[in-house]
């Protein structure tokens, strides 16, 4: 039984990391209706910039992080100005394609500037089992995972407060509801989009540092976007809590499936199991767990 809990808790904690990436998608989708496929590339870009600054200039992580943050904000603002602004009023699929183009661009850019080798990122948290859980319940849970889950929890709470309590947050939700109506009541649309992309860049930075510290900073980081997609469709594209709950469900069920069902069918089912799970779920609730109900009129 303790093995089951070990896998289950490990899955939940991994799910928090998926949720973090999914959050970046949700933020941008909520505020502009753009399905930003480049979020994975942004995670990669953030992590390799951070590591690259440390390696190249020999500064400490505490200086590198704000510098990376500045770079992410610049990247977000540039994206808004160069890519999205000319595409206002185009169909969703065009915007989606543009973000795939952006993915290629950012991947190339990150590797051009910082090289493509795998590098370590040390954020000072050790990946060892928590001692008291091991003693008391005989369950090995990584200290690193727990800490990163804590960081995610803080971040999510902060974002939720930001969305619901501040003036900018309200403006954001207004923009998400209706671009034109928001413009009509005097909300500066482009400024809002700039803020959203900057926040998404920040989320990408946190995700990139946590994932990078776990698995090394490398090109494979871009694929965390593919891990976040089933989380999104399960939780709903427009919901911050959906991203969290979806992440937990996907993380836990994926690990359990891999451990308990995997050996029966040859293993490696982690790649598709979350998608099939999310797909089956969608057949019951087509808008995901917490997504807005889609009302269609003629």
């Amino acid at each position, binding site marked *: 039984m303790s093995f089951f809990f070990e896998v289950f808790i490990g899955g939940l904690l991994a799910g928090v990391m998926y949720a973090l990436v999914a959050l970046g998608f949700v933020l941008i989708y909520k505020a502009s209706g753009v*399905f930003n496929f480049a979020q994975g590339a942004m995670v990669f870009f953030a992590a390799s910039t951070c590591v690259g600054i440390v390696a190249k200039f020999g500064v400490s992580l505490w200086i590198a992080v704000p510098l990376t943050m500045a770079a992410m904000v610049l990247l977000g603002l540039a994206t808004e100005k*160069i*890519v999205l602004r*000319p*595409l206002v009023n*185009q*169909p*969703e*699929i*065009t915007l*989606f*394609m*543009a973000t*795939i*183009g*952006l*993915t*290629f*661009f*950012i*991947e*190339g*850019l990150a*590797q*051009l500037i910082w*090289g*493509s080798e795998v590098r370590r990122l040390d954020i000072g948290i050790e990946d060892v089992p928590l001692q008291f859980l091991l003693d008391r319940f005989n369950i090995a849970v990584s200290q690193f995972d727990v800490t990163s889950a804590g960081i995610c929890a803080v971040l999510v709470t902060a974002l939720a407060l930001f969305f619901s309590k501040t003036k900018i947050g309200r403006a954001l939700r207004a923009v998400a509801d209706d671009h034109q109506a928001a413009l009509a009541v005097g909300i500066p649309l482009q400024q809002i989009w700039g803020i959203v992309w900057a926040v998404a860049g920040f989320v990408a930075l946190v995700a990139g540092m946590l994932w990078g510290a776990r698995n090394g900073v490398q090109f494979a980081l871009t694929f965390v976007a*593919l891990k976040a*997609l*089933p989380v*999104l*469709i399960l939780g709903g*594209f427009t919901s911050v809590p959906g991203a969290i709950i979806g992440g937990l469900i996907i993380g836990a069920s994926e690990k359990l499936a891999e451990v308990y069902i995997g050996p029966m*069918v*040859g*293993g*490696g*089912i982690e*790649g*598709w199991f979350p*998608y*099939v799970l*999310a*797909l089956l779920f*969608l*057949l019951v609730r*087509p*808008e*995901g767990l917490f997504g807005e109900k889609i009302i*269609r*009129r*003629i």
Partner: protein
Amino acid sequence: MFYREAGQFKITYQADSQIFPIRQDRVGIALVLAIAFLGVPLVASPYLFSAVLIPFLIFALAALGLNILTGYAGQLSLGTAAFMAVGAFASYNFMLRIPGIPVLLAFVLGGLCAAMVGIVFGLPSLRIRGFYLAAATLATQFFVVWCLTKIGWFTNNSSSGVITAQKIVILGYEFDTPASKYLLTLCIVCVMAVLLKNMIRTNVGRSWMAVRDMDVAAEVIGFRLMRTKLLAFAVSSFYCGVAGALYAFAYLGTVEPEAYSLDLSFRILFMIIIGGVGSVIGAFFGSAFIVLLPIFLNIIAHSLALPTSVASNLELMVFGALIIFFLIVEPHGLARLWQIAKEKLRLWPFPH
């Protein structure tokens, strides 16, 4: 001046409803086909066949398939490569398990298998739409490739997972040179493109477009949504399946799951977006663009003597930037530019 339809009167219904109602178009198409069938095989080098022309035709076929689904029926899909893989592996297995089966029949059966898989994975489209569906089609992509990798029967228990494709032999003639493979591919692509061009003018095509434009309205006025959508998935997957079989047999020469990655799905999606969603000629334009672009970029990088790593990263960046540029400048794709050119030619040399 050259492209004037004045004086071309249609006096029968048949003349009015033919595929290319304008004489210049008919002459142009005949010319293009003549060059493709007769001119190109005489002058092209084996490199040109195997590195440019064959992949161009195969990708165009796959793009036609995706265009049915996305361009005409309005269902966004990221699982194209999976359907191609099904077609390739099914054809391989038919040829392996049934000795003496005609190659073309194996291709058709492979396409039918892909169509069946397409129907199964098209079922969610009845409930979900838009990006939810796009993300859900990724399930097809990962699940199918995983199946083909893990289940030994599909790969005939090959240890490496890389299988040499069977020889293409039709009526005793072996298609083993690049030129002959090119001609075979060209024939198949031409037949299927004409079929599609006709299909979208029938009530089937019209019902797809009705569903694309507004599926609720289409249902209200009596289109059967389920049949229409699943038919779109089936036909689209059939085209992709045949393209996948050709990709393995005429281009790669091997049948392997890794060849049908998500990357391939994206490339085919790029093709229809850049070429023009919902247009047959757009699939060909888009395929040509995506096949030629890396080659051009390579030549440029080579002439500038850039190191390989820099060159490949620059290629990624240029590729991404060009896609964005294209979407901004002409969101309706190259097919729209072609249409504009034709409209201008109609009035040329007088602007009004």
